[in-house]
């Protein structure tokens, strides 16, 4: 090829802004940890770290000088920032490590002059992650078949209300539980009907259900539950105490003495994972979420599979909703799900549309939710309204792409029209 006539202006490879931005963010975190969590407490404050949960005094505590400890953590964080800038090591690992260290530093600072019980923190995070994780399973089941269930929030809220009402009327928690699940499934069926049969945009159909559920439950709360306060008592599902095993140090309270919902969550996560990847139902559902026309050409009915999955997803969201009443407060408050159905959707995305991934993401959000309570215990001088924003801030950071883009099912959210 002949040389071009004019001077050649070369275009260099694009600068990896994202990598730099995240690296600088880590460095900023390091400085923050050093100044606020380290320097600030340098003179002489100690944090006691214990691993006891409710078995007070079972194991001796670990006493660390807060300032020195956090200054060390700040140095480690700065190293991670450097590694990110120099592109050493996998970005995802660095992110996990940086977040972990930041959280540890923050917790140690918050508990300065006090006792930080790791098992307690883990337990309350686990509990807070229940509705998010089960809600995320609902999202995974629906989206894997190609329907975005943005109605999780509304399904949870309705289930919370119905379970309270039924529990209050019958006094039977199992009836309350079943009616809550059924209410979720019914709203799942409504979403399926709107989006599959009448081809309404899935997002709009789902959002309509959310708005409807908010208004419907708030109205009935005022007109029924406030008038008859004796009905606003769902009852509670008793904790599962696996006998003396819960007295085993560390693992005992964490594994063997829990809210029944925690066990249900773990069982559901793994059984849905196995069902999705190792059974005929799972294979067919995923094929419908990826390429419904291809599924149809081999004799699979995409509409029928989507109906099934969306109703199942609704039932799961219903189960998640009953946690707020039967698994926690025992009574209904208007808008008590406080957007956790939407956070569940974010957990679906962060978890890569995979039940186990979504569960891990839900744990992160569960921690963010429980941070409010934990920091409250330590009397940290932060406005409670700011604390209650934490889970949503974490959500914004998560969706803003710190974790990188994951790949949704190819036909996610797309209608399938039969010829």
């Amino acid at each position: 090829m002949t040389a071009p006539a004019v001077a050649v202006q070369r275009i260099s490879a694009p600068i990896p802004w994202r990598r730099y931005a995240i690296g600088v963010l880590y460095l900023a975190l390091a400085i923050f940890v050093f100044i606020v969590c380290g320097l600030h407490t340098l003179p002489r404050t100690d944090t006691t770290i214990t691993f006891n949960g409710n078995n007070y005094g079972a194991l001796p505590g670990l006493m660390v000088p807060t300032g020195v400890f956090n200054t060390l953590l700040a140095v480690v964080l700065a190293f991670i920032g450097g590694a990110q800038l120099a592109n050493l090591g996998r970005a995802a690992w660095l992110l996990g490590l940086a977040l972990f260290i930041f959280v540890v530093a923050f917790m140690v600072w918050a508990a300065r002059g006090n006792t930080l019980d790791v098992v307690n923190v883990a337990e309350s995070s686990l509990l807070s992650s229940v509705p998010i994780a089960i809600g995320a399973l609902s999202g995974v089941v629906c989206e894997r078949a190609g329907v975005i269930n943005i109605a999780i929030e509304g399904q949870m809220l309705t289930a919370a209300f119905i379970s309270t009402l039924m529990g209050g009327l019958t006094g039977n928690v199992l009836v309350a539980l079943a009616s809550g699940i059924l209410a979720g499934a019914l709203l799942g069926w409504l979403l399926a009907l709107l989006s599959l049969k009448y081809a309404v945009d899935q997002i709009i159909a789902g959002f309509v259900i959310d708005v409807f559920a908010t208004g419907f439950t708030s109205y009935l709360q005022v007109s029924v539950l406030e008038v008859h306060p004796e009905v606003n008592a769902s009852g509670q599902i008793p904790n599962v105490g696996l006998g003396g095993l819960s007295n085993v140090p560390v693992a005992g309270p964490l594994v063997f003495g829990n809210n029944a919902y925690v066990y249900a969550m773990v069982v559901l996560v793994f059984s849905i994972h196995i069902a999705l990847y190792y059974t005929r139902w799972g294979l067919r559902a995923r094929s419908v979420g990826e390429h419904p026309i291809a599924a149809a050409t081999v004799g699979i009915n995409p509409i029928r599979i989507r109906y099934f999955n969306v109703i199942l997803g609704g039932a799961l969201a219903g189960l998640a909703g009953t946690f707020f009443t039967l698994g926690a407060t025992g009574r209904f408050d208007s808008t008590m799900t406080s957007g956790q159905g939407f956070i569940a959707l974010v957990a679906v995305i962060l978890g890569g549309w995979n039940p186990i991934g979504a569960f891990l993401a839900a744990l992160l959000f569960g921690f963010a939710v429980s941070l409010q309570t934990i920091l409250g215990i330590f009397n940290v001088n932060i406005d409670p309204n700011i604390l209650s924003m934490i889970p949503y801030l974490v959500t914004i950071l998560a969706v803003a792409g710190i974790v990188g883009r994951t790949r949704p099912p190819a036909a996610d959210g797309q209608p399938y029209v039969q010829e």
Partner: protein
Amino acid sequence: MELRGITKRFPGVVANEDVDLLIRPGEVHALLGENGAGKTTLMNVLYGLYHPDEGQILVSGKPVVFQSPSDAIAAGIGMVHQHFMLVPVFTVTDNVMLGVEPTGFLGFLERRKARARLVELSQRFGLTVNPDAEVEDLPVGVQQRVEILKALYRHASLLILDEPTAVLTPQETEELFGVIRSLTDAGTSIIFISHKLKEVMAIADRITVLRRGRVVGTVAPADTSEQQLATMMVGREVMLVVDKDPAETGDVVLSVEDLVVRDERGHNAVDGLSMEVRTGEILAVAGVQGNGQTELVEAVTGIRPVVSGTIQVEGQELANASPRDYLDAGVAHVPEDRQKYGLVLGFPIELNMVLNTFEKEPFSHGIVIDYDAIRENANALIRQFDVRTSSPQAPASTLSGGNQQKVIIAREFSHGSKLLVAAQPTRGLDVGSMEYIHAQIVKKRDEGAAVLLVSTELDEIMALGDRIAVMYQGKIIGVLDRSEATREGIGLLMAGRTREAAEVQGV
């Protein structure tokens, strides 16, 4: 297998009218016809995707009714669709067994069983494929094998191949023909749908020609010729070769050097490509679909960002310039996806004809659009380019594919451009429209424009190109003069086999 008196109507059109078709065991029966002749509709009827309005389907002499593809599959019919019906993120085994999965306790998949049967089938028919590979990582030729295996796995005794060669290199086509022969030897019947005359002549035992939904006739290859088949398809005499004089080349218009362009997934789709196009010549870029042609065209028209390298039009550096800059530099673009990039389907034809010039005189005065001038322009162009429409105000979506392409050609050719970039200009068009558009491109060349033509159709490349560049994995791996190029040599280059190609071409 027999079809008797099949009629299928859609609102406003009769797609199939009184079609009879008899398939004998172990034969390759070609179904030949232009796009829109009703081939695919007929096969969808046979496969249970559509229900015929009249007529019946007979299997081994007995009438049957197919409510859905499941019924057709149960009757031993398999179909390889033109757009593969594979789930890209599934493994080969998962794709093959989908819908007929062997399962055990609680519906758990028995993948090992399916895999064993798949391996056995692929060995028996010489269809080599890795059963554990994910489909999206496989080349199209192999994906097609997966589709065939899918049908065989369901015990298909009649296999419908819908335009199976559209995505293959000439060599892959030869391999496919080998597979077809081994299948017919085992007693499987094949329906081979195509609009390519050469292939049909080469592989078919009998050929049925469809035109406007009706059967024109059934012939054996020995009793006919390509010219006769073309006449049957179109209904009139057709020019199979493009009439053109040798190129009179002049100065370099487009010069591309070390161009690197990424695709959506971040891979270097164009990877260090250099080329130049001169006035008065057509540089035809051949290559199997997906070797970076789309990205190349988008880069040299300003649609896609350039990672590195230079693009110059008449010496002016335009890499990463906007589409508007390319327009102003005199680059006309006939895009690959005419409905997505070429037209605003909901806009009237007259506005589509000024999409790139509407803000200039005489169509606008300041910020005011002059609709009279636009209509005048549209009327003139509709006459000049023979666009068949009821009115210039009709939305572009109401036009047939051929006429939509004529609207784009009219728009792009009507302002004096120096460089024409045409991507797959006749894809999906009937032979008549193809003839017309080829003649227009040659005319543009003769007026002194440089033409960059990108096509995956070897016939088009051979018919139009003055020089032929072959693109393979983002690079141009060979440039041949039309006079020295052979189909075989280009085919080898398209498969990346430069050394064998050099032997064939003797260069």
